[in-house]
């Protein structure tokens, strides 16, 4: 338990340091507000799809993990609906509602969840593989599809045409990175299936290209968050933070734990799901919110605030895990 808490604190401090450094450089005039858009695009249209594609290719899969993922996804859906209902009750603007749904639903599974599971259970362990698969299926893919749709829907100006699902899927499937992935993957299969010369080099280039991008994602995301961040007004911010903390960091772990216990999942699987549900709001969710017109500043402030709050809530979860 102490090991889990210790790694969690260190990771939170690391990301806060990166955000603080970016803020410092921004205050010194080295970064400007217009840089924000560049990083938003880099994350959403370049690095994020790469991470999903390369994770899918390398995925080791077990059928029972679909069931675990379904429990996680159900908890996420309930959280999203609760946040939406609260926003309606509070009559919050659409752009704020979109930002709250994203950061109140999607957590930092790749930023915090995966490194924590890796540090505690080992990078090569089955727990790590399970954590990665569930994080991919329950968070990464939904946030890149449903998350973008939610952001685009709530981020669109009043009266403007929304983004339909077919259009969003079509756009996603024709991004340069997806086309490259599809061609590269097909060529890689072709070369290795027919034992053609150069198959090894091609596979090395193909994997290396995606590895370079994958490894850079976290830094790009945190730079984007650092650029987005503005000191919020306490009076309006604190109720929003309270809502997100209650839903994302209390309700979501409770729902996941209840579902996992009711389904009789093994202890290890329950622990993994609990860790992934208990992590603070996802930095990528804030970047997506900003990219598609929702209130990015609120989203970024909420992400950083939930990281701070997790210094109190996560040890309690670790205590439950034992």
């Amino acid at each position, binding site marked *: 338990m102490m090991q889990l808490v210790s*790694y969690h604190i*260190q*990771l939170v*401090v*690391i990301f806060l*340091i*990166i955000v603080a*450094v*970016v803020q410092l*450089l921004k205050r010194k005039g*080295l*970064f400007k507000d217009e*840089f924000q858009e*560049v990083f938003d*695009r*880099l994350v959403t*249209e*370049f690095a994020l799809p790469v991470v999903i594609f390369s994770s899918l290719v390398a995925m080791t899969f077990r059928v029972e993990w679909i069931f675990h993922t379904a429990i996680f996804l159900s908890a996420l859906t309930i959280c999203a609906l609760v946040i939406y209902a609260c926003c309606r009750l509070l009559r919050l603007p659409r752009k704020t509602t979109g930002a709250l749904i994203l950061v109140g639903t999607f957590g930092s599974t790749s930023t915090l969840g995966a*490194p924590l599971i890796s*540090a505690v259970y080992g990078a090569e362990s089955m727990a790590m593989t399970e954590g990665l698969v569930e994080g991919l299926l329950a968070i990464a893919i939904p946030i890149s599809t449903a998350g973008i749709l939610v952001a685009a829907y709530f981020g669109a100006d009043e009266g403007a045409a929304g983004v339909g699902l077919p259009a969003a899927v079509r756009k996603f499937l024709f991004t*340069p*990175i997806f086309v*490259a992935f599809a061609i590269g993957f097909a060529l890689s299969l072709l070369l290795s299936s027919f034992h053609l010369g150069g198959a*090894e*080099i091609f596979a*090395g*280039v193909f994997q*290396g*290209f995606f590895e*370079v*991008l994958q*490894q*850079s994602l*976290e*830094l*790009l995301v*945190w*730079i984007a968050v650092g650029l987005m961040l503005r000191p919020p007004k306490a009076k309006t911010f604190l109720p929003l933070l309270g809502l997100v903390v209650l839903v994302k960091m209390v309700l979501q772990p409770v729902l996941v734990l209840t579902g996992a216990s009711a389904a009789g999942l093994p202890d290890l699987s329950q622990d993994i799901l609990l860790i992934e549900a208990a992590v603070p709001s996802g930095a990528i969710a804030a970047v997506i919110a900003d990219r598609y017109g929702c209130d990015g500043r609120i989203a970024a402030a909420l992400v950083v605030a939930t990281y701070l709050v997790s210094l109190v809530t996560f040890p309690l979860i670790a205590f439950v895990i034992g």
Partner: protein
Amino acid sequence: MDQISLFLQSVAIFFVLVLFIQVLKWQGIFKDSHQPVFNRLITELILPATIFSTVAASTIRAEQIIGAGIMLGSVLTCCFLAYLACRALRFSSRLTGSVVLLSGFGSTSTMAYPLMSQTFGPGSEGMIFGIMVGELGVCIPGLTIGVLIAAYFGSRDEKKRPDLLQIVKNFLHSPLFIALILGLAVSQIPPASALMQTWFAETLFGYFAHGLEILVAISVGLMLRPVQIRLLLPVFAVIVSLKMLLQPALVLLGAGIAGFPDLYTMILVIEASMPSGAVATIVANRYGCDGATASTMVIATYLIGLVTIPFISLVMI
């Protein structure tokens, strides 16, 4: 042949990354105006963090200093010869700055380190020697002397007499120099240096190190644009002959005179035979030199490296 295959892979990955940025640029996702963002990010944040963490966690030994001295001597000789060639060819100051930088400073961290890691193994004697020689002989001089060179030539076209005092003052206040000094200070305090090898420090600085390659590729990709063909051939000839042929020969000579064992000689030659540094291109562009030609030349030296580096590796090994 392993290291040759890895080199070919590294070159290909870099090309694919650059090509991708070009595609995204054509699609309007990236614009020319975005380039300074990445230049600043690299020179003001990522590289200082990488330099600090590398230097702070290092223990400097005599043979590493000698190796770095040999490397630095060859780099400065190539820079000086490049300057003479530019004067003879009457290149502009901005172009001269770029040619001088690219003729001396190679892709040590982006190309040589992965190659050595694969060849000798991470954490091996060869790898440690290679990193120290690369940092002390190429990277740190490139980010200190290289910045001064870039600032000097980059400002000459605008002012008749470059304000050297101001350039030095700016350099002393630059994050790169501050990172170097801080890193050296920390490396001399054992408890602080040990702290740099903890999981926390390695994870924190690992994020910056992992981001370097992609950000450099993005910056080069955005920098790349059409340049005057007439100018390219002489520029290309100067850079290739100095950086990729003369520099390996010079370090081979230096290692022979120093009586280095085969392992150290091999590492020196591998590092010297690297293509021109993408980071040098960013420094050149950041400080007012000809960034467009520099980025084209980096790509060109990577291409020619496909032939020269396997050849040099085969001869050495």
